[in-house]
């Protein structure tokens, strides 16, 4: 059981990190390209929501 928790903990961390990096990165790229300042924030929010949704799919549905 402890093993399962350990795994869940690191998976969740990994998903949250990936979410922020990927969608935040896309937002940052859009900001650079279009010379705006709002897409990084939107990207980070989309990323973290996606990551939380994914965590729920993996661990919350059972």
């Amino acid at each position, binding site marked *: 059981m402890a093993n399962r928790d*350990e*795994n869940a903990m690191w998976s969740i961390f990994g998903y949250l990190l*990936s979410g922020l*990096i990927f969608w935040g990165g896309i937002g940052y790229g859009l900001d650079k390209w279009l010379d705006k300042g709002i897409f990084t924030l939107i990207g980070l929010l*989309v990323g973290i929501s*996606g990551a939380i949704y994914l965590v729920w799919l993996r661990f919350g549905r059972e």
Partner: protein
Amino acid sequence: MRVLLRSAEGEGFVPPSTKDFELPPIFGDNVYTTKPILLVFLSVILISVFFILSARKAAIVPSKFQFAGESVYSFVRENLAKEVIGHEFMRFVPYLFTLFTFILVNNLFGIIPLIQFPTMSHVSFPYVLALSTYLVFHYVGIRKQGAFKYFKEILFMPGVPKAAYILITPLEILTFFVVRPLTLSLRLFANMFAGHLLLLVFILGGEHLLQGVIGLKLISPFAFAIGIVLTFFEFMVQCLQAYIFTLLAALYIAGALADEH
């Protein structure tokens, strides 16, 4: 040594930094003979000799030596491989066992007197271990389920609305192929790096205080005492990190073998 020289010249205390990890080559200018590399070879020799000796005169009533070797082996086999991977665990015991003993011995070098340098505080070594683990668990997954099915299950989780894949598929790719191996290696590296730095601060600091005025001399035993306490703490961290690395490797293999992710 560094601190002794500097104190003799009457300079102030310079706290340990990343420079303390850049060790010069031991034999001439050959960059392949730095301390961490020699320690890796030493660890391989130590582990091999220990387990060959402990297994050679195997008897039904084990000697203390054989008992020690077998305890480590059965710990990895029962607590890590069997419990995590399940009925196919026997194939992976050699890999996990090698991983565990190799990391453990190299970590313990950090507190063994006269050696006192954790090899894994050089990031390249954890990188290589994580890379080999990464190749193992993807290979196992592909062999077991076929490349197409294996990647399809990672990328497209069943039972999710189609539109959501745009949002979550990139995250799955990033998690599985980048974040996992990176966190695996960086966790080991950062723990060993920080632990070594911490010991340096207290022990070199205590030494420096000892060379100060009488008031500072009186404080220095406390710095050494904390250094000793932290050495025991480091021992715990070093064992724990070797365990966690192996545990996560086993979990990733188990995940690749499982039919449903």
